[in-house]
């Protein structure tokens, strides 16, 4: 999946400034941003539910908005609602039909999807009797129907309890493991941090940061408070570049698994270790920093080189 300069205006209001996106097979991409940032607009453009003012893109080799582009896409909308007068089983079969899956495969796909989202015992109940969380589970099951190559989930855990959220993480990991791509639109930064390979942060319709999670968050560091060490720079320089900050020593970038070796080296040199603090900037730190700071200035400095499409 690839988009180039995707732009959407509603009148004079800029809903999305310019979205360049490449999603490769087996990749999970997170879309982040405050309310009204343009995330759902981006998803609707990808699904052909809305037409771009400018820019273009392809979905599974077809132009955005093309009917055939949606042959192997699973989508859970932010506003999820399904015919209330149908049973869960019937909704599944309806979507098997609409997706063009072979008739003989419907019972298998339906069973698999309902089992995955934990709704098999309620398969014969009408959707109208479901709680909001159960309806979101149903929507998630529909998005998984027929093992699509691309799954787009718009706020997939907004109505779910903690168990449901964990289930969603399992489902996304399983989809990635079978080679499907996932676009995850979420407010839950921890969720995105745990699941996504790449992150795009949108604010006021503009992409203010995009790239691999590790590249965006920067390398981890190790902060130490030591005594009895005369020359920390030469002692610890073999592990990572060393900076002295008062009585503290900072090694950055440094892999966290080297921490015991660093401590052992200090002790072997006759020094004493008073504190060891591995540090890693979280996605939340980055997000809040970007959204609260001067976004315009941040745009270019946080824009990372894009990988090329396969």
């Amino acid at each position: 999946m690839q988009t180039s300069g995707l732009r959407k205006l509603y009148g004079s209001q800029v809903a999305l400034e310019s979205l360049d996106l490449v999603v490769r097979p087996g990749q999970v991409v997170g879309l982040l941003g405050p309310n009204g940032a343009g995330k759902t607009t981006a998803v609707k453009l990808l699904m052909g539910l809305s037409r771009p003012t400018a820019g273009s893109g392809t979905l599974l080799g077809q132009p955005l908005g093309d009917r055939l582009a949606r042959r192997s896409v699973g989508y859970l909308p932010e506003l999820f609602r399904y015919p209330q007068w149908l049973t869960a089983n019937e909704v599944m079969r309806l979507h098997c039909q609409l997706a063009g899956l072979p008739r003989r495969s419907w019972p298998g796909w339906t069973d698999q999807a309902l089992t995955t989202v934990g709704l098999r015992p309620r398969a014969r109940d009408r959707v109208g009797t479901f709680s909001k969380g159960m309806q979101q589970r149903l929507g998630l099951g529909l998005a998984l129907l027929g093992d699509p190559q691309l799954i787009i989930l718009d706020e997939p855990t907004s109505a779910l309890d903690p168990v449901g959220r964990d289930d969603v993480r399992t489902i996304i990991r399983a989809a990635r493991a079978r080679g499907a791509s996932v676009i995850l639109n979420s407010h839950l930064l921890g969720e995105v941090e745990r699941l996504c390979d790449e992150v795009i942060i949108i604010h006021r319709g503009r992409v203010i940061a995009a790239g691999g999670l590790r590249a965006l968050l920067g390398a981890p560091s190790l902060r130490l408070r030591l005594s009895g060490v005369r020359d920390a720079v030469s002692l610890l320089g073999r592990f990572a570049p060393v900076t002295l900050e008062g009585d503290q020593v900072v090694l950055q970038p440094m892999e966290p698994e080297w921490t015991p070796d660093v401590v052992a080296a200090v002790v072997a040199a006759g020094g004493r270790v008073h504190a060891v603090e591995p540090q890693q900037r979280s996605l939340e730190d980055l997000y809040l920093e970007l959204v609260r700071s001067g976004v315009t200035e941040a745009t270019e400095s946080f824009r990372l080189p894009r990988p090329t499409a396969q």
Partner: protein
Amino acid sequence: MSVRAVTIICVLTLREVARRRLLWVLLGLSIVSVILVGWVVTQLVDYARSAGMNEVRIGLGVSQVLVFVAFMFSFVLAMSAAFLAAPAIAGDVESGTLLAMLARPISRADLVLGRWLGLCLVTAAYAFVSGVLAIGMVALVSGYMPPDPWIAVGCLMGEALATLTLALALGTRLPAIAAGAISVVAFGMSWFGGVLASAAGLLRAEALVPSLDFLRLGMPTDLLWRGVVHALEPPLALLVARGLDPRGFAADPFFAQSAISLEAIAWSIAWTAGVLVAGVLAFSRREL
């Protein structure tokens, strides 16, 4: 357009109407109305016979009752069609039900045409059953069989389908309640335009007729209504009318001098098809 996708949506619409008991409510209402009509006509005929009235005059009277019954049915049908069709797209857009469906490999034209076809089948069946039962009941209790009952039923169905198409097409852009209200008002305006155009002829205000014709023909339901009336009138009523000032009868919305013309049928079909295509195009360009 995909015939497979249109069929899926059409079948879904039929199931929805049946599952939500709407079909049974409509059928029940028809049966109640027909029984009521049968009872009233039986009473009228019995009173007329006991007063010594001859059968020709009784037939003439019953034909007028039948025209009024058809008038009531045409309004009920138009309103049922409008309120059935208006939320068919608009309601699903408002609730978000369509988002998941349109994420599948179907086009918006498939969705609109499938909805339209399903609702047309339900409405046409309802109009057919109601019309046949009402005419059959009147014939049974009074002995009066109108000259062209099938044309009357066909025109009633046409009125319902035209109103349905307008409500569905408006619902692709407007909220359901607005689409339904506009369709019912348009139906009434067409009928009213027909009355006013005829009255303008009677009052020698011919200059007004073109603009009133525009109101009357803006929706083909008045043409179809005149077709219903003519098909239900006994030939005797036409003979009586010929001896009087034809303009006086022309102004009567419950009288038609001539059968529905081929031009009127063609206009009704073209109008309905045009509105449907406009609805498809409007929905295809809509931002969801």
